[in-house]
């Protein structure tokens, strides 16, 4: 048996003993989790789920942003060995559907998500298929490995056509995704980085991570201020990382004529969207979700080269048995200072034990 944090329903995440996964077969790999971050998606599931979790599922172990070590391999695994340090891509794709055959894996019709549709990494062990593993070089600590997934989400945004070195960007919201966007924007050579955030500690971290200007929307009109900082034009690129109607419209309006508004926030209700500014000024609004093959590796390379230091993102490190009060509840209560909470279920970090059956 092993300790796990399982979702049972909204506001009902339980720390409980569950069976350790069976020895892996086929292309599957059993991994021992090093660190796993609590994601905004986990919080959405905690507060208002099920969203990504299939309604038919009664219980699932959360946790999809993680680094791990390979503990055992199936009989058809040829690209991983026991002991490998890895980051796991949570997408387990079917490799057969309409979209997989067109290499559009993130739109796989039979997509499974580790930590949402199948058991994840808030437990000592979890299972992945070998094509979900990305090797983590020795120079990068396990903790940083757990940050690769959220950084890859924003890296995917920065790889979109319309994003180019020397462009300026306005990032709306400095939560985990917004702050990751700041770090990645800096690392890939965007010129001027403007952040809109009203919480003071988040604003401070945004500056630490490379923001040139941080605007407090309670003090200034954010739209006017962004235009003021971009010679009256609006930003070449805006990125919405909040998920509210108001901030979505700000992102669309604050993009310059011909500019790009990347929408990364997940909204909980329909929004009144000002599309006419996009028509008149020939802007583009683009949904930004997930990542492509190779983008985990690219983020790891940016970290290895020293161009991306994710350490300011980490607010707290916990053993798994403290995940409820010091993890989920803290993230809900203290949005300002709690950005990324990393959880370790591994005995190496002194947490709950387990054994392979």
């Amino acid at each position, binding site marked *: 048996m092993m300790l796990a944090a399982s979702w049972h329903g909204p506001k009902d995440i339980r720390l409980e003993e569950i069976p350790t996964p069976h020895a892996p077969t086929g292309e599957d790999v059993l991994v021992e989790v090093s660190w796993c971050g609590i994601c905004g998606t986990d919080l959405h599931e905690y507060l208002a789920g099920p969203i990504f979790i299939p309604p038919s599922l009664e219980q699932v172990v959360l946790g999809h942003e993680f680094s791990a070590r390979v503990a055992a391999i199936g009989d058809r695994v040829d690209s991983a060995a026991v002991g490998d340090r890895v980051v796991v891509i949570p997408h387990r794709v079917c490799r057969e559907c309409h979209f997989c055959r067109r290499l559009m894996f*993130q739109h796989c019709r039979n997509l499974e998500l580790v930590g949402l549709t199948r058991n994840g990494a808030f437990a000592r062990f979890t299972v992945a298929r070998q094509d979900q593993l990305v090797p983590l070089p020795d120079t990068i600590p396990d903790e940083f490995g757990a940050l690769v997934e959220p950084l890859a989400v924003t890296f995917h945004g920065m790889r979109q056509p319309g994003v180019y070195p020397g462009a300026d960007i306005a990032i709306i919201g400095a939560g985990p995704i917004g702050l990751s966007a700041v770090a990645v924007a800096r690392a890939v050579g965007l010129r001027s980085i403007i952040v809109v955030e009203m919480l003071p500690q988040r604003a401070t971290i945004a500056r630490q991570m490379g923001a040139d200007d941080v605007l407090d929307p309670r003090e200034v009109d954010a739209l006017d201020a962004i235009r003021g900082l971009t010679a009256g*034009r609006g930003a070449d690129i805006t990125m919405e990382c909040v998920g509210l109607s108001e901030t979505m419209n700000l992102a669309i309006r604050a993009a310059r004529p011909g500019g790009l508004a990347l929408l990364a926030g997940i909204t909980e209700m329909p929004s*009144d969207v000002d*599309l006419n500014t996009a028509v008149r000024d*020939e802007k583009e609004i683009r*949904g930004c979700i997930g990542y492509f093959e190779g983008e985990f590796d690219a983020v790891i390379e940016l970290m290895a080269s020293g161009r991306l230091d994710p350490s300011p993102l980490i607010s707290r490190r916990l053993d798994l048995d403290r995940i409820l009060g010091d993890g989920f509840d803290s993230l809900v209560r203290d949005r300002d200072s709690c950005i990324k909470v990393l959880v370790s279920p591994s005995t190496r970090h002194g947490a709950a034990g387990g054994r392979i059956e």
Partner: protein
Amino acid sequence: MNTRARGRHVEVRVDRGLPTAFEASTPSPGPGELLVATRAAALGPDDLKAFEGCVLSGEFAGDVLAVGPDVASSLVGSAVAVLGYRPCARCHRCLDGVSTACADIGLRGRTIDGGLSGAVLVRTSDVMVLPPGLSHEQAALMHRVASALRALHRGPASPGEAVAILGGTPLALATCAVVLAAGSGRTAFVDDHAGCRAVMEHLGARSLERPSEASGWEDLAVWLGGYGADVVYECAGSAESRLEAVELARPAGSVVLLAHDDTPVTMDLNLIVMGAKRVRGSCHYALSDGRVALDLIARSLVNAAALVGRTVSILDVLADPEFLDGFTDCRATIVQWPASAEVNLA
């Protein structure tokens, strides 16, 4: 009686919602200006929505009558098409090279005087000399073809890609012609207007009424390739149609919005975010798009004839002021203004 000889010309303005001829004194072109005698204009019922008192038509071609003091006199007599809008050339958007988003843009035949006139004053920066062999009547279609080309490039639909066009407007028809010319794959047109559907069908698009049930849209998405269109060109502009366009685009597909409408759209933005969809506006066109449009029409690479419903004389329009209303299938009425004909005031 020859008005031109007396330094006067006739122009057709919107008067109480109807085209009406007025005599006016002919201006002389200043620096950087040309005087153009219109020979053909493309009109539709929408043109009557122009500001009261405005000279009609934003889509016209003509001959250069006279040039300003600093303009090459060799241009006199040249056949030209004129940009359908007038950027201010001073605001920071114009100076940044995005004059289509000019903060003080004038729309010819809508918010500023258009071209249905015996003498139109235009800037040299707003005209294109017609390629050899192109008639004024064909050149009058430049505006809508250029706008459609702009939208195509905003898409951009690659050859073979599945395309849907929503909304029966003249621009939708031009977009259909341009997209098919560019080699689109399955191409569907959706609108309730039977006349528009017949025209699109004739061009080569599968045309259908707006489905009233979700299952109708799903069937269309399947026909378009399984999960929706690669590119949807939304030409109606209503909130409903814009929402349908976003829904009809496949995951990671594109929507191009061509119509202006200030009504906010209430939508679940997760459709765009989780679908990784792209929604782009396309507005007006650049001079370069206009030149390409003229060239494509001249070389018959776009089926321009299919965009025309009827060709009439300016005298017919003036004889029956409600004439324009009688033609609503999204094809143009080409109005000829013969060089020799004298337009008489009623």
